């Protein structure tokens, strides 16, 4: 390694020291999935014995499971022995040397989003010779959070500093054996975020993974755990609008939310991972398990997601509505273009009396893409007067894309009220002609109609996020109508 590169590494590691990471040596675990790999990961992260045991147990369960096939997506078989499960930061030889080596389409997108040049380099994975000035931002905001007792740190750090909290809640919402990919994640998860909001505390700011430099390196098996103690509130933002390149094709994250009595978590995601080129080559497989548990009475979880990236998206942010009068909400925009495939939706499991859920799903399919909504509303026998309202709209652009809706409803309590509305429409020539005859270009007109279609979801997003999301849809749709 050149001296210059070493200096960079030092700088990067410095950031981690001040921030979330401890010292990381430049080392890879050899590809392959076995107990050795898991022990290696755990050791590298200096984890306590109980966590290693937890991982190993998950691995055993993973071995007994088979890959699910029910989603409406197609992809070549994944060889789990080919994947490297512990990837230290990439060496500079493997990275593009400059932006000249990066897919020009990607750069064009960065331009349009107005991302500064230096940030573009980081996002595109170019070996950078500057370090973000994020340390100071990061420190100030951490101090502010500490004042009210909010914990927001990396998962690894939480394991070290708050083991009792992690132990108490980890895997209680998404058990390792929940599904094939959650078992895999539990065995080999790399890092992620941990948030704890103490009793009767309103988190003084929106928590964003943006604040965390290392969000980009948490890699393919991210683990997030957010606990909102009684009477607390937090709004958490995940992801960013810039398309992020990642050499890891398979992403299998797990997100667990725990909401106690009278508490609320608002979880917003804008996901724009590399969808692959126009032929779908090189895109990310995003197989995520996201679930929240409304444990206490009157607790509330609100999921809002805008998904435009990934070659394949397979995720169902869900709510277990255990508490009486607990509330679950799911607002989603999923846009697919070119050869992207998305099978996404939610599960609302009503257990508590008077529990209430709302599902608003907007799917937009362009190009030759496949976009499926899959939703489950289950009302248990104990859920007197449970209510659900589902609205599921699909918008088709062009005539080669497809939209699918798979709603499942299981109701074991006769007092429940469940409503389901669904629509599929095409952008009409009338609408386009109307707007264009007013002086609006075809592209702007399409954006306007699509954004109007998504409005009910966008209004749930925090302000700046909503503005970015609108821009993002426009960019993702470019060239989708000839």
């Amino acid at each position, binding site marked *: 390694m050149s001296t210059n590169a070493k200096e960079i590494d030092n700088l990067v590691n410095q950031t981690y020291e001040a921030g979330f990471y401890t010292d990381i040596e430049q080392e890879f675990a050899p590809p392959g999935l076995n107990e050795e790999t898991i022990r290696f990961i755990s050791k590298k992260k200096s984890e306590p014995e109980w966590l290693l045991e937890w991982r190993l147990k998950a691995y055993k369960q993973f071995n007994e499971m088979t890959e699910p096939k029910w989603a409406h997506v197609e992809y070549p078989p994944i060889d789990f022995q080919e994947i490297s499960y512990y990837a230290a930061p990439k060496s500079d030889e493997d990275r593009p040397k400059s932006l000249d080596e990066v897919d020009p389409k990607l750069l064009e997108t960065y331009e349009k989003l107005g991302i500064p040049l230096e940030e573009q380099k980081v996002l595109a994975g170019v070996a950078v010779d500057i370090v973000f000035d994020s340390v100071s931002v990061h420190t100030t905001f951490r101090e502010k959070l500490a004042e009210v007792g909010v914990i927001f740190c990396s998962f690894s750090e939480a394991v070290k500093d708050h083991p009792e909290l992690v132990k108490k809640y980890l895997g209680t919402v998404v058990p390792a054996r929940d599904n094939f990919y959650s078992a895999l994640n539990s065995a080999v998860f790399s890092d992620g975020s941990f948030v704890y909001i103490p009793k009767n505390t309103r988190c003084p700011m929106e928590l964003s993974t943006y604040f965390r430099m290392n969000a980009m390196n948490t890699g393919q098996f991210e683990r997030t755990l957010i606990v909102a103690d009684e009477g607390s509130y937090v709004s958490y933002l995940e992801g960013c609008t810039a398309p992020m390149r990642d050499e890891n094709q398979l992403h299998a994250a797990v997100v667990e939310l725990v909401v106690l009595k009278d508490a609320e978590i608002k979880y917003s995601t804008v996901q724009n991972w590399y969808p692959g080129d126009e032929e779908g080559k090189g895109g990310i497989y995003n197989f995520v398990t996201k679930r929240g548990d409304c444990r206490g009475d009157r607790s509330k979880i609100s999921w809002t997601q805008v998904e435009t990236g990934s070659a394949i998206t397979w995720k169902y942010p869900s709510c277990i509505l255990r508490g009486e009068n607990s509330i679950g909400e799911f607002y989603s925009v999923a846009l697919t273009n070119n050869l992207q495939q998305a099978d996404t939706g939610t599960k609302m499991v009503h257990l508590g009396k008077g529990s209430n859920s709302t599902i608003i799903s907007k799917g937009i399919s362009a190009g030759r893409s496949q976009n499926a909504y899959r939703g489950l509303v289950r009302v248990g026998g104990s859920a007197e007067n449970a209510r659900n309202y589902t609205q599921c709209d699909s918008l088709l652009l062009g005539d080669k894309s497809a939209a699918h809706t798979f709603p499942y409803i299981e109701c074991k309590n006769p007092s429940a009220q469940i409503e389901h509305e669904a629509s599929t429409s095409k952008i009409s020539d009338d609408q386009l002609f109307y707007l264009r005859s*007013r002086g609006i270009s*075809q592209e702007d007109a399409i954006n306007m109609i699509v954004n109007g*279609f998504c409005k009910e979801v966008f209004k749930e997003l925090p302000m700046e996020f909503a503005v970015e999301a609108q821009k993002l849809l426009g960019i993702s749709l470019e060239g989708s109508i000839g």
Partner: protein
Amino acid sequence: MLEISDLHVDVDGKEILSGINLTVKAGETHAIMGPNGSGKSTLSHVIAGREGYTVSRGKIVFNGKSLIDLEPEERAGEGVFLAFQYPIEIAGVNNVYMLKAALNGIRNYRGEKELTSVEFLKLVKSKVKAVGLDESLLNRQVNSGFSGGEKKRNEIFQLSVLEPMLAVLDETDSGLDIDALKAVSDGVNKLRDASRSFVVITHYQRLLDYIVPDYVHVLANGKIIKTGDKELAHALESKGYDWLTDGQESAA
């Protein structure tokens, strides 16, 4: 301003307009009347540039420039406006937001500076009064949940903000009660001046009592078969179209 000569237009291989000649000078208002299926709406759509119409022969020249190869938004930029017979609903899109995008689209096309939000709102406030549009409609979704009268008034309001040089009103009177008709006509009349021209397409003479035209043309079977002044409209009102179309056939 607008010169249409020998215009032939096909839709799905069927000829709908068969040699239209029409000259509209600056400041003039022309009414186009005619029975159902005579090609009136086709003419308005062809002027505005809707897809699906094939111009097989003839010219549409606007201020010396051929419109035929221009996109609808480019025609708007040149100063053409079409008030729709059935204004389109667009869910989730704010009425004023749409209008601002339209005005700035046109200004961009002309190489003029875009209006800021403040400038734009000022403009809107002044126009909304002039047209008598209920201000609460401004921030509703485009035409969504509007009554028939509100939709038409909204078209005229858009017209007043976009200030085109040529406005084509496609059966703006259809579905309006007499009060709404008066209000819409008032709005149009306020916008009439020496530099702006109107082509008013209608079935009924009634509208022309309020928007008094300089010329009245009768369109039948894809051709203008008679041109006169406003008295022609009165004649049509009492006699219908048959005496003209019959006459045309016997002459042929």
